[in-house]
């Protein structure tokens, strides 16, 4: 099996998806001729045609709205938004139409589309290029929310997303695009939604994360192991649907948990997880569930970005304080 980075895994998956289903179309800004700003769609227009890999005008609401119409009429569009910070102009289309047509029409019309969006900080980019606002999608009924952390998962979850009968927000961790390589089967193997992955087994506490934070959490876990603390690391992979059983099961065993999330703290997905854990496993908890999160600040620009993104140090410190039970 070939080793690929996460970006290459996505390209591979898209190539397979396009080849196996003639109803799939890719559309977005610069996805065609130039292969996307992260080159995820590189070569796909040449291979599958300009009527299937489509450069659009600069108009995010138009991209999502057109993709919605295509999906309603029987195609399976995969739209790309260039960065999560540029998805907000399309938020109305997502909330008001994409997520709702099935319910509005009691299953008569559906919108099986995927919206791929690079997200997250850590590459010192300009403002709006570093957002982690997955929570606003998780809060929107009718959207599935997927965030892979490894190359194989990226490909496998994308395959599942493309075949899903409902709309999927597919968030791609920018700083993981080329951070590590991993084995990716060719063709990729679908990864089911709603199944968290145990990335590390441990009995002292549970560290819960997803997407771009997972590699850092694994580093932190190694660090903790050096200090005699064995952390279990859960990678959620999909926020909606959520593998609640895996979360509760692990915390019930370890009695302690920290959730690591890059997004802003207030009403982030970590809040949802902490609330759920105390609801379902309060009597197992030996210490408060800790949240290690980005702050309620704008993500800083390059020179101060490191103050925002939770790093290994903050994760380790939080884990230690959870172990101390304070």
């Amino acid at each position, binding site marked *: 099996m070939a080793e690929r980075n996460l970006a290459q895994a996505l390209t591979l998956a898209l190539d397979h998806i396009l080849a196996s289903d003639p*109803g799939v*179309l890719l559309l977005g800004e610069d996805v065609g001729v130039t292969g996307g700003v992260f080159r995820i769609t590189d070569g796909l227009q040449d291979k599958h045609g300009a*009527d299937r890999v489509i450069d*659009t*005008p600069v*108009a995010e*609401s*138009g991209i999502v*709205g*057109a*993709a*919605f*119409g*295509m*999906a*309603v*009429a*029987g*195609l399976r*569009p995969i739209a790309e938004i260039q960065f999560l910070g540029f998805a907000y*102009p399309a938020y*109305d*289309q997502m909330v*008001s*139409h994409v997520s709702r*047509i*099935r*319910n*509005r*029409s*009691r*299953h*008569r*019309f*559906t919108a099986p589309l995927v919206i791929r969006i690079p997200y997250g900080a850590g590459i010192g980019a300009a403002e709006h290029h570093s957002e982690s606002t997955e929570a606003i999608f998780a809060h929107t*009924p*009718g959207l*599935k929310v997927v965030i892979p952390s490894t190359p194989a998962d990226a490909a496998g979850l994308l395959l599942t997303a493309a075949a899903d*009968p*409902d709309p999927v927000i597919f968030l791609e961790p920018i700083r993981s695009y080329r951070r590590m390589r991993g084995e990716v089967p060719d063709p990729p193997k679908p990864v089911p939604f*709603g199944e968290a992955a145990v990335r590390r087994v441990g009995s002292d506490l549970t560290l819960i994360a997803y997407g771009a934070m997972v590699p850092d959490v694994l580093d932190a876990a190694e660090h903790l192991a050096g200090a005699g603390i064995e952390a279990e690391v859960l990678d959620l992979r999909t926020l*909606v*649907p*959520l*593998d*609640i*059983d895996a979360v509760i099961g692990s915390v019930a065993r370890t009695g302690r948990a920290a959730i690591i999330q890059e997004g802003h703290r207030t009403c982030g997905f970590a809040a949802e997880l902490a609330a759920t854990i105390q*609801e379902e496993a309060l009597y197992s908890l030996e210490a408060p569930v800790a949240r290690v999160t980005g702050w309620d600040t704008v993500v800083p620009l390059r020179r101060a970005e490191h103050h925002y993104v939770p790093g290994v140090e903050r994760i380790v410190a939080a884990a230690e304080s959870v172990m101390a039970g304070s």
Partner: protein
Amino acid sequence: MLEILRPDGSLDGDSPISLAETRRLYAAMISARTYDHKGTALQKQGRLATYASFEGQEAAQVGAVASLQPDDWVVATYRDAAAMWMQGYPWVNLFLGRTGDERGGSPPEGVNVLPPSITVGAHMIHAVGIGWAERHQRSDRIAMTFFGDGATSEGDFHEAMNFAGVFQTPVVFVCQNNQYAISTPRHRQTASETIAQKADAYGIPGRQVDGNDLLAVRSASDEAVARARDGDGPTLIEAVTFRVGAHTTADDPGRYRDRAEEDEWRGRDPIDRVRRYLEGAGEWTAEWQLELEEEAAAEIEAAIAEAEALDPLEAADLFAGMFATPTVQLERQRTMLGGGSHG
């Protein structure tokens, strides 16, 4: 502004359709108005949520949809019941929606009409995507979308028109310029002289027609539909008309416009105009009118009865509507319904 049928019922030029077809569309307009009056009345009785009357706009809606094939798409708004019904969306669904029941949004298979868009502006690009998909799938179905003068101010109107122009999708944009967006008059909505001229910004042909003139609307839509179907791209039609009633049953037009303006437009009623024309051609009689009204009333009453006979959705139905297969979260929440535990 294209005009064919004069207010007095005489023709200025040739009619695009036969007298038989005109009779058919006249009958449709009678049905539509019967539905509309009933809607307002039922809302007053508390049997519907709010209701948005389209009285005065029947020619624009019926005339435009009459150009379509039965399997073409219609993507319209809360005020376009006549257009939707013309394309096969049953009255019962329209009533059901108005009672506040999601099942109103589920027309029979084969009816390619989306549930009405309540948000202003967002739905036009849906029609663009739909037309695009049909062409991609080598079907010759096209999409027609309806919207108001107010909707042209939303950014989504612009993105829809621009995409349609760039990708030459088979779409007909029908703007019913009914002079108001709730209380805001047309001249405060945009400083452009006409709405039709906005098409030029997208390399799309734009056509202004008298929206109270069934034949003018039909003529323009025949042309636009043919263009779309022949692969010659989108068209914007501005049908100049008037909302004779209130914005919705929650609105009081007395606050923002004169009775005189309403009266003037009532004098240009689109149905009366066709009646005069048919009468002049010996194709209208008082008996036929009575017949049409009775048939329409019966049809509408039956639809209301059918809608009101339905039991409301259960709580569990809410959860079942969201996805093909409910998520873990929804499953958990459904179990909270039963007991009070943590729910």
